[in-house]
């Protein structure tokens, strides 16, 4: 973990990024509601700052664990790095091929089978149909879904979805892997397999950013740790230190929201 100004090869550089959402108080946005709003002349919009002036650099080979209370901006940070959410202010530079594994899973269409989702996931990541054919079995094997791989993913449990999503994401041989709470999805056996795979990715001098509420996972696997608090960087450093500081902070009751995480 270091400031963006350092010249070492970085995988991700986040420079003074602020992300603001427009939260609509109205349930649904329609032309009807837009017209009726004209009459009242009232904007029912509230702004939520999910990230406030966040800067960080993730170096090649770094495994960054991101911790913080619910709503601290962890998932927003991942989505912004992945290029899914636009920053409201600031700039993000990413060096390398990013694969995201976000909590919602890979399901492009719940009616499609696991195998069809592997295919779409591969194409979405820029593989050719031939390359997908070559990796398909490997992915199915890794996910450990057995015959479920040929069932529609709407029949999957959330753990099964998580496993398939992880299997697809790591098979894409990403330079940078973004993971949101994936490890909490699988069972103990799958978790072992997944951590082994993540170590492999790191050995290839690639970078991983993992958002997790499981503090032990972060302590065990991450090489550095970022603590986000209400959208700001609270602390960055050695996982042991940061996790300890976070735990103390929560135990002291400084932030009621943080209790959600235990």
């Amino acid at each position, binding site marked *: 973990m270091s400031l963006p100004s350092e010249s070492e090869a970085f995988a991700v550089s986040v420079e003074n990024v*602020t992300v603001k959402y427009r939260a609509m108080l109205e349930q649904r946005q329609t*032309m*009807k509601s837009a017209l009726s709003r004209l009459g009242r002349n009232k904007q029912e919009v509230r702004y939520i700052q999910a990230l406030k002036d966040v800067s960080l650099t993730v170096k090649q080979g770094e495994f960054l664990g991101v911790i913080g209370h619910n709503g601290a901006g962890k998932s927003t940070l991942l989505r912004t790095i992945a290029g899914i959410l636009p920053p409201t202010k600031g*700039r*993000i530079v*990413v060096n390398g091929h990013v694969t*995201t594994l976000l909590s919602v899973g890979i399901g492009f269409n719940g009616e499609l089978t696991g195998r069809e989702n592997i295919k779409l996931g591969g194409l979405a990541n*820029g593989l*050719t149909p031939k390359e997908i054919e070559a*990796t398909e079995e490997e992915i199915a094997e890794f996910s450990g879904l057995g015959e479920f791989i040929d069932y529609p993913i709407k029949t999957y449990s959330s753990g099964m979805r998580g496993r398939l999503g992880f299997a697809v994401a790591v098979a894409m041989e990403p330079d940078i892997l973004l993971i949101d709470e994936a490890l909490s999805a699988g069972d103990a056996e799958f978790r072992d397999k997944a951590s082994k795979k993540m170590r492999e990715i790191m050995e290839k001098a690639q970078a991983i950013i993992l958002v997790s509420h499981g503090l032990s996972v972060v302590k065990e696997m991450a090489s550095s740790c970022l603590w986000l608090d209400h959208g700001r960087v609270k602390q960055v450093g050695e996982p042991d230190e940061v996790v300890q500081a976070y735990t103390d902070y929560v135990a002291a009751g400084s932030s009621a929201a943080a209790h959600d995480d235990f």
Partner: protein
Amino acid sequence: MTTPEKPTITRIYDAERHLPPIGPYLSDTLSHLQFAYQKARLDLRAAHKDTWFGRLWNILNPLLLGMVYWLLVVVIFGSGGDIFGREGLRTLTQILGGLFLFGLPSASLALGSKSIVSGGSFVLNTRLPRMLLPIGSVISSFLSFAPSMIIYVVFHLAAGYEIGFHLLWTIPLVAILVVTALGLSMVVATLNVYFRDVASFLPYATRIWLYLTPIIYLYQNVPAALDWALYINPIGTLFASWQQVLFEGRSPDLVFVGASVGWALGSLVVGALMFMRREREFAVRI
């Protein structure tokens, strides 16, 4: 699989930019067309539309609708010739030819309008150009449209319309229509993110559009004073050209083709710019 020598990709996400860099955006889109195609195909399969009955319904639906309009024209208005005679069959063929083709833009808009809002995990979890979703809608619509042309051929032959090289014109005409449909789909896809009732109004708008386009009537029957109506309709001159090729056995008027190409390129550019300018907001809006 990726090779070790693959070039490092650097991506920059900058708050100051409203439009993504257009060159890389388009090449990113083009390199993922296979994804859009497979997604369209698999979505059709998931909706059971590639089963035997699904395909049959794709053809039966416009076929039955065509019969309804035909009865309207021939029986109620008493035009279009004797119902059981050759003229009656020709009228039916004219209606079907137009109606089958109209299925392409109307399905594109219907699917396209919902493509982003129902794009769920694609929009929330990938950074791929969102343009792939309306492109997928147009591909789906094309895959549903193509088999209906086989049925049309049967009617074309039965009605005794001319066969010749002029029919090759149908290929560029369909291509122009695909481009127009894509442009308009991107417009409604964007609008529907902001106004969720756009998709609900669309069927009515589409129905009116159908009546304003030379489909259940011939373009020559449009009164001269209303000639401009063909030109302000994005697909008006295209359907007129379609009728010239199929039912008059000749190449279409170049003025018509030119106007159609103009509408196609115009819709594509306007639709694409509007879509690209807004697409980064989609993730927070759905």
